[in-house]
Structure formats: structure tokens, C-alpha cells
């Protein structure tokens, strides 16, 4: 209770006005003036002969309504921001009285209030929005890839019923099927509505008088029925169009129809030249039909030759089948396995060790990218977590600054839940705006991603921001808003008004707030470390990959593909003549040092392989022999790519006669099959009945990727078989790209209808083979960089906050003789302590999480200590920099000012 002394009146008034949180000298003035008023009234009453108690009572009667005074003062004194708060509170009291539909009205008021708050703090709003836009945008972008590649069903009816049927190999894995096996599968199974076979082929078309190559697929007539694809014009294939004489029909993809024929509606029924033959266009498929791959441009009937029908050992065809309704994959697999066993018993010579394997088409398309995508999704999840934490931190700081507002509002009757809701409305509003900005970020990122990932993701072309992505982003925004806003909202609403009053100017400095902010900073550092470790491991893998010995010297080497149409070049001899002439002409070009052909370049995802048998050795049982890669090559190929001749000789013109049986082998083949290391002059069999003589041994190359070891390799002269196509390999004296036009001209001089395609330098071929790793590394590095940046901002803001909060303590220390360097050390020490805690936690988490990414790593373990140490040091270093600025500010604290701070 107030006493007569003025000091008591001052205290009395101060306590009553404290909830307004006016602060500073203004508050002191008002308090003094009102106390003076009370004192004067009290003294007047005493002078009139009242007792002290009566006088006090009369003085107090001067202010019968402190709430009213508070209101009036807040209207007069407060800034626009706090007036807004009071207004919003007024709106609330009004709404709560109305009940019912008032909830919505109140929400709108809260939103309006939130908008005004954001507009009034453009700096805060910009930082928070940018953080959220990056966090949410990165997530939406990666999710749109996941959506397109993993989630969105294939565009065929009931895609979950589509399966690929393979022969399983004795060596493990799956392989193509031979025609007799396919026929037996069809005859003996009853789990499919149909099994379609297909095989890739290259076709030459005329486009604007230029020969171009089109990717075509030979398919059995039931192919489109199995897929459930209906043409947008014309028809699909008919039963019987796979017989000789009826097979000159073609179904075009929408893409080719538009590109080459200007979407001519009258094209169906007309003939087009295709690979030197006339084909009748019977139908056009809609853009969604892209089976078996997005690159396919046309489909023609697959006609099995008599040889193919007779040979159970010639495995050349892929299949797609549709499960009958109600038949599960397991049931189908069970039946097909049984059929496989029966065939194995019936035809042990060809089928020993071979079974049947079914895969869901939908699964198959994504099995290689799934781990990488999920890891990237996890990584952006971490980025968002850090973004959330940062925004939570910003909101906490804001909340501390808004305690005045909160105090007024609770003084005006706002309950805790009410305050929490207002804060959450604001943070969700913020994250919604961030989400909208994030969608913009995502739309850019998606465009960049689908270009980057085109070679890598089966369905990269389908990556887009569809409703799922928008829904995902919306959900993410709500969650982000709640997660980021909940801690600050609870924190502030829990604050005791009395507490706020006692703290006077030093708002929001409760120990709990400090703990929460420090905890958030630690979490940020930990998350950033996890991402940095992940990125570091991928970078290290990539560096390892790049230093892998490819076995070739790619400098100044140009490659391009040529596919000869079977109609005109139906024999190995005709094709051989074509290549020989091209090679002669190209070799004669100025600036060309060497030129050769090979049917498959190194570092390709697929190959042709088989088993070999060495003369004098008992043949191993099938399936026990390591597979040997078969290639067709000319001598120039080895010279152009710098593959060393280790012993014997390369091919000579005499080897190119079709009666010659000379082959060149790789070092690994020698090591695998010739224990004494001498192969030249020895004889082997490779798939055929004839003995082949080894005339030379060359160095190894990586046939199927840098991560895959070299396999035994056997080179036939390029004239030995008629391959589907050959790659020209030209070694130039200078920049190989300069040779492109000249080489193309020479090819067309030999055959003007012959297109060349896939024109790449050998370095590009190598880069392409590791583009997945590059993409993973690039993306994860971007995310880790983003995470680090956000975490550093987080540490900076926490340290700035701590310094501001401990100004008084720092002042006292300095007054007691602490030097600026002591203070610097103190502040930086605290910052580093937080960072170290984060790094420790992060390292533990990374230890557990990097195990999940082992499939993406090459030559480095998920627990690679060097990576951990390096990225920890990096993080510590940037954290140090982030602490330095606030620490410097702390050393500038004037002890006198600091002591007067409260």
C-alpha cells in the first residue's frame, strides 16, 4: 500500500503502468507526473484535516480506473504497432462475445493484423521469407522430381499390373529372352492377359531433305494391348502384322508426328520411307505413351526370323506383360518359376541355371534412382528443418521484442491460447507467403533440374509442378509455420506479466528463452553437419571416380554414331565396305591422327557378352564361366583411343576377310583365362562353333562405368558380324569438335542417306558416364551450402542476441578490469561451445545416416574420418566468423552505459 512519501506513490504508479511497457524516460516522466498528482491530492486532503488513511483514500479516488488509464495511455503513447495489437485485442473481445461465426471473422482479423505486422517489419519479413522460400522451394523442387519419378503412376491403365518378364541368369541378374522360351511362356502360363516382346532398333528418316535417325522399337502386335495404350489417331497393330509381307506398318509417337510431319492429320494411311523401305503409317500414339523409354519415336512390328524361332540360346528380346486382374506379382512369379524349372529340365543344354524373374515395370523404371532421390529428399528435409529453426529463432527474437504488446493484450484480457493462436496465425501466414515464394523458387529449380537430370532420370521430362507438388508445398507450409511458430508462441505466452515488469527494459531475457535459442542453434549446426558430411562424401567419391583409370586417352577424340539400315546393308560384308570407305576418307582428312570404329564405346550402361572356352581346357559348366564382353572393332579404334597394344598385333586388313578367325583380347581376359599369361597364338571359342585365334592383347578399359571393374573383353574385326550400328572414333590433332562437320561430310559422301548422331567428344562420353554422381554431388553440395549458410545465420543471430542480453554483465566485467580480448574470448568461446555441441550431435547423426547412402559412394566409406574432420573444421571456422561480429560489438560496450542499461 502506498504511503505518504512520494517514493511510495512512484512505486505504486510504476507497478500499475508497467504492463504498458513504455520503458525508458517517457515512462519515468509519466510515473512521476501521476505520482505527483496523487501526492498533491493526498496533501490537500491532509490539509483539509483528513486522517492519513482518509487522505490516502481520497488520493486513490483520483484514479478510480487504472484499466481505463492504461487504455488511454496506450493509445496516446504507443507506436502504431502496439496500437494495432490493442485494436486486434478489441476485435477479439468483440468476436468472442458473438461466438459462432465469429471464429472466421476473428481469423480474418488475425490475418489482417499479421499482414500489417509483417509490413511494418520489412527487414525481418524479408529475411524470414527468403529463408522459407529457399527451404520450402528446395523441398518442392525435389519433391516434384520424386513425384514425377517415384510417385506418379505410369500413364497406362492399372500400371501396377504391368510387369517385365526376364530370364534369370546363372551368374545372377536378369537377361533377355529367346523366342522359343517366350513361346513356351505364352503357351504354359495363365497369369497374364498377354506377354509382348520388343527390341530396340535404329531407323533412318528423311526430315527436311536431311537424313535423321529415329529411335524405334520392334514390338509384337499385342504390345499396345498389353500396355493399354490407345492411339490418338489411326489404330495400333493387328494380329498377324508380325508376319512377312504384312510388317511394313508403323505407329508414330506424337513427338515424331509433330516434328517430322507437322502433325499432319492425313498422314495415317500414307506411306513413309523408313530405313530404305516404305512403311504405312497406321496410327499415332498420344504423348503420354513412351514405352519402353521416353526416347522412343516410332514402333514397327517385330518379326521373328526362322533362326530366332529355332534358337533357344539366342536371348535378344525384352518383354512386358500384363497380369490378369486379381493375380498378384507373387502368384505370377510362382507360376513362371515353375515354368522356368520345367524348361530347364527339358532343355538343359541351353537352360541350365536359367529361371524366370518378374519385375513391376513401375518399380523397374526407378530402382536405380530411388536411393539417390530419397537421400536428396532427406537432405532438403534437413535444409527445411534448419530454415524452420532459423525462422523460429527470428520469431523468438521478435516475440521478445513484442512482449510489450503481449503484456498489453493479456492486460486487456487475452488468454494464453488466444495469444498462441495469434502468434501461430502470424507464423503460418509467414510460411504460406514463404511457400508461395518457394513455389517460384521451385519452378526455376525444376526447370534446371529436368535439364540436368534428363540423361539420368527415366521420367525427367515429366518433372513439373502439378497439383501434388502444390498440395505438398501447402502442407509443408502449414507444418513449417506451426513448427517455427510454436516454440516462440508458447514461450511468449507463458511469460509472466510480473516477470516482464521486473525485467523492465531488458525484455525477453529469461533463462528459458536463452536455452531455447541456444538449443535451436545447436540443432541447426547439427543438421548442417549431417548435410556437409553427406556432400563431403559425395565430393570425395566424385574425385575418386574422376581419378579412376578409364584405360583410354580421351584427349582430342571425337565420337559419333552411325546405324546402317538393314534394308540396304543386309550383310556384314556390305556394312563392312561402308565403314572401310568411311574410315579411309576420314583418316585422310587433315588434322586426323587416327580413326576407327567400335560397336560399343567404353563406359556404356549396356553391353553384349557371352562365355568363352579356351582350347585345351575342359569347358566349365554354363553359368560358372565369367562373362566376356564381345565387341566389334577396327585397329584404328585402339590407336584413336590410345589403348595400348601389350603383345601380338592389332587387326590387319587380312583379318577383315569374312573367313578370317582372328581376335584381339584384353589384359583381363588373359589374366582370367590364361594362367600362364600367354594368350597370343592360342585358340578360343566364343559363342560359335569355330575356333578363334588370339593375335593380340590390349589394355583394359572400363566397359560399363567407372565404378565397375573391367571385364574380360574380346574384339572381333568389325567385318565379322553385321552390328546394329558403329561408333566412329576419331583422334584429332586439335579440338575434336572442329572435325565434326568434316567427318559428317565424309560419311554422307559414302551414303547421302546416312545420318550421324550422338556426336560427342570422348571426354563428354566419360563425363556422361558419371553424370549421376555429378548430379547427386552438385545437388547435395548446394543443399549443404544452403544449410551451412542458414546455420551460420542462426549462430550469428543467437550470439548477437546473447551479447545484447549480457551487455550489463559484460559491462561489469569490463568495469572490474576485463580486457577487450578477454571479452572477445568469452563471447567467441560461448559461440564455439554451441557449435561444438552441434558438431558432436551432427557427427553422431551423420554416422547413422550416411549408412543409407553407401550405394551412392565410391571408394570412400560413410564413416570416412577425413571427411568428418574436414567438414567439422569448416563448420567451426564459419561459426567462428559468425561469432566474431557480435563478439567485437561486445568489446565495444561502454561499462558506464552498460551499468545504466536497466
Amino acid at each position: 500500500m502506498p504511503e505518504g512519501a512520494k517514493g511510495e506513490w512512484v512505486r505504486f504508479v510504476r507497478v500499475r503502468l508497467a504492463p504498458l511497457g513504455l520503458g525508458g524516460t517517457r515512462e519515468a516522466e509519466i510515473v512521476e507526473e501521476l505520482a505527483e498528482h496523487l501526492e498533491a491530492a493526498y496533501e490537500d486532503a491532509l490539509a483539509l484535516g483528513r486522517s492519513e488513511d482518509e487522505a490516502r483514500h481520497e488520493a486513490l479516488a483520483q484514479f478510480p480506473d487504472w484499466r481505463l488509464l492504461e487504455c488511454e495511455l496506450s493509445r496516446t503513447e504507443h507506436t502504431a504497432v502496439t496500437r494495432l495489437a490493442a485494436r486486434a485485442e478489441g476485435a477479439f473481445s468483440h468476436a468472442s462475445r458473438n461466438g459462432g461465426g465469429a471464429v472466421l471473422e476473428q481469423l480474418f482479423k488475425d490475418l489482417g493484423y499479421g499482414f500489417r505486422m509483417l509490413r511494418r517489419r520489412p527487414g525481418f519479413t524479408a529475411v524470414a521469407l527468403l529463408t522459407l522460400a529457399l527451404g520450402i522451394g528446395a523441398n518442392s523442387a525435389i519433391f516434384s522430381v520424386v513425384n514425377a519419378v517415384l510417385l506418379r503412376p505410369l500413364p497406362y491403365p492399372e500400371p501396377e499390373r504391368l510387369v517385365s518378364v526376364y530370364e534369370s541368369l546363372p551368374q545372377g541378374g536378369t537377361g533377355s529372352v529367346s523366342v522359343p522360351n517366350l513361346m513356351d511362356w505364352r503357351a504354359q502360363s495363365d497369369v497374364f492377359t498377354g506377354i509382348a516382346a520388343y527390341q530396340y532398333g535404329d531407323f533412318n528418316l528423311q526430315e527436311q531433305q536431311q537424313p535423321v535417325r529415329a529411335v524405334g522399337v520392334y514390338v509384337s502386335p499385342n504390345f499396345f494391348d498389353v500396355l493399354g495404350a490407345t492411339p490418338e489417331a489411326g489404330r495400333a497393330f493387328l494380329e498377324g502384322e508380325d508376319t512377312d509381307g504384312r510388317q511394313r506398318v508403323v505407329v508414330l509417337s506424337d513427338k515424331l508426328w509433330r516434328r517430322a510431319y507437322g502433325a499432319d492429320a492425313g498422314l495415317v494411311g500414307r506411306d513413309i520411307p523408313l530405313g530404305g523401305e516404305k512403311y504405312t503409317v497406321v496410327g499415332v500414339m498420344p504423348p503420354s505413351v513412351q514405352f519402353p523409354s521416353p526416347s522412343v519415336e516410332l514402333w514397327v512390328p517385330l518379326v521373328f526370323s526362322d533362326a530366332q524361332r529355332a534358337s533357344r540360346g539366342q536371348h535378344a528380346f525384352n518383354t512386358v506383360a500384363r497380369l490378369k486382374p486379381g493375380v498378384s506379382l507373387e502368384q505370377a512369379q510362382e507360376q513362371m518359376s515353375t515354368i522356368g524349372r520345367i524348361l530347364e529340365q527339358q532343355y538343359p543344354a541351353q537352360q541350365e541355371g536359367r529361371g524366370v524373374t518378374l519385375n513391376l515395370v513401375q518399380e523397374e523404371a526407378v530402382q536405380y534412382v530411388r536411393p539417390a532421390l530419397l537421400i536428396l529428399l532427406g537432405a532438403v528435409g534437413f535444409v527445411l528443418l534448419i530454415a524452420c529453426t532459423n525462422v523460429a529463432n527470428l520469431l523468438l527474437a521478435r516475440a521478445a521484442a513484442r512482449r510489450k504488446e503481449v503484456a498489453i493484450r493479456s492486460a486487456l484480457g487475452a488468454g494464453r491460447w488466444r495469444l498462441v493462436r495469434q502468434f501461430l496465425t502470424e507464423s503460418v501466414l509467414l510460411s504460406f507467403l514463404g511457400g508461395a515464394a518457394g513455389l517460384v523458387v521451385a519452378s526455376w529449380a525444376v526447370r534446371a533440374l529436368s535439364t540436368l537430370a534428363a540423361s539420368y532420370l527415366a521420367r525427367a521430362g515429366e518433372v513439373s509442378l502439378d497439383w501434388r507438388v502444390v498440395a505438398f508445398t501447402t502442407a509443408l507450409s502449414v507444418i513449417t509455420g506451426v513448427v517455427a511458430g510454436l516454440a516462440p508462441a508458447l514461450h511468449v505466452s507463458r511469460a509472466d506479466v510480473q516477470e516482464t515488469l521486473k525485467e523492465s527494459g531488458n525484455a525477453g531475457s529469461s533463462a528459458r528463452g536463452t536455452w531455447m535459442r541456444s538449443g535451436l542453434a545447436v540443432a541447426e549446426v547439427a543438421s548442417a553437419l549431417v548435410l556437409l558430411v553427406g556432400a563431403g562424401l559425395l565430393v570425395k567419391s566424385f574425385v575418386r571416380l574422376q581419378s579412376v583409370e578409364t584405360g583410354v586417352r580421351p584427349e582430342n577424340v571425337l565420337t559419333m554414331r552411325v546405324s546402317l539400315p538393314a534394308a540396304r546393308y543386309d550383310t556384314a560384308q556390305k556394312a563392312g565396305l561402308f565403314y572401310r570407305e568411311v574410315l579411309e576418307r576420314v583418316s585422310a582428312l587433315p588434322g586426323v591422327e587416327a580413326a576407327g570404329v567400335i560397336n560399343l564405346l567404353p563406359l556404356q550402361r549396356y553391353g553384349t557378352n557371352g562365355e568363352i572356352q579356351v582350347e585345351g581346357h575342359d569347358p566349365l559348366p554354363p553359368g560358372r564361366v565369367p562373362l566376356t564382353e564381345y565387341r566389334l572393332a577396327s585397329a584404328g579404334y585402339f590407336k584413336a583411343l590410345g589403348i595400348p597394344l601389350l603383345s601380338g598385333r592389332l587387326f590387319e586388313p587380312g583379318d577383315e576377310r569374312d573367313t578370317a578367325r582372328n581376335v584381339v583380347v584384353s589384359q583381363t581376359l588373359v589374366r582370367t583365362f590364361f594362367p600362364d599369361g600367354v594368350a597370343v597364338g592360342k585358340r578360343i571359342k566364343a559363342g560359335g562353333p569355330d575356333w578363334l585365334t588370339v593375335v593380340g592383347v590390349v589394355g583394359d578399359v572400363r566397359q560399363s562405368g567407372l565404378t565397375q571393374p573391367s571385364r574380360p573383353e574380346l574384339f572381333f574385326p568389325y567385318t565379322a558380324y553385321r552390328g546394329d550400328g558403329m561408333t566412329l572414333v576419331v583422334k584429332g590433332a586439335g579440338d575434336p569438335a572442329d572435325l565434326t562437320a568434316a567427318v559428317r561430310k565424309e560419311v554422307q559422301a559414302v551414303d547421302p542417306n546416312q545420318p550421324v548422331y550422338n556426336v560427342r567428344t570422348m571426354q563428354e562420353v566419360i563425363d556422361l558416364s558419371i553424370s549421376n554422381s555429378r548430379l547427386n554431388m552438385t545437388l547435395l553440395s548446394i543443399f549443404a551450402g544452403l544449410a551451412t549458410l542458414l546455420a551460420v545465420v542462426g549462430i550469428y543471430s543467437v550470439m548477437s542476441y546473447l551479447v545484447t542480453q549480457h551487455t550489463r554483465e559484460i559491462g561489469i566485467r569490463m568495469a572490474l578490469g576485463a580486457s577487450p580480448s578477454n571479452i572477445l574470448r568469452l563471447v567467441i568461446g560461448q559461440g564455439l561451445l554451441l557449435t561444438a555441441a552441434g558438431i558432436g550431435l551432427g557427427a553422431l547423426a551423420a554416422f547413422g545416416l550416411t549408412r543409407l547412402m553407401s550405394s551412392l559412394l565410391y571408394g570412400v566409406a560413410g564413416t570416412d574420418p577425413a571427411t568428418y574432420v574436414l567438414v567439422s573444421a569448416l563448420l567451426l571456422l564459419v561459426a567462428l566468423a559468425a561469432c566474431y561480429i557480435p563478439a567485437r560489438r561486445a568489446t565495444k560496450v561502454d561499462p558506464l552505459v552498460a551499468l545504466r542499461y536497466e
Partner: protein
Amino acid sequence: MSDSRILDRELKKGSAEMLIMALVEDRARHGYEIAKLIGDRSEGVLQFHTASLYPLLYRMEKRGWIKGQWVEKAGQRRRRYYRLTAAGQKVLAAQRNTWQEFFAALDRVARITTEPGDA
């Protein structure tokens, strides 16, 4: 009921500013004095809640109509005295004018003055 209260409030609100300005027109006064003078001179009819007086003073000060100043007189405590500014003088003159017109109009319509008018 509530209608008359609103009118009452509006009247007081409009008049309070003029009353305060009139009181500090000739000499500076502190808040307690202003409150007392209004109560005394209106014989208790016009009574301010202190809750309204000080915020009103601050508002008027912000508008630049009056100016408050801490004054320490010998043997007295420090008090804040308010005086009329030049801007306040103009507002006061205008408000007096308005009120005079208002009263005249009221009188013409409702004959509220107790003394016989000269018109």
C-alpha cells in the same frame, strides 16, 4: 440511455480540450491544478477522471497545442507545467468560435440561456 451517454461523452471530449487550453492560456499550470480548477469552476459538473486528463494532456502536447515543462520551484517538488503554444492559441480561438456559434444556435432553437437575450 446509451444515446445520451454517447452525446455526453462527445460533448466532454470536444469541450475538454478547450477547457484545458483556456486554463493554461494565461499562465502555465500543472495537471493536478488543471483537474481541480475544472472541477471547482464548473462546481463539480465537469469532472475529469484523471484517467482521461493525463492522456488528453499528452495527446494535446503531441499535437503541439500545449507544451509541458518540468519546473522546480524553491521549496517545492518538481512539477510539470503546461502552457499554451502559439498553435494552441489558434486552435483555442477557433474552438471558442465554434462553441459560441453552437451555443447561439442552441439558444435560437431551444432557448437555453437564462438571461434575456438582446436580440
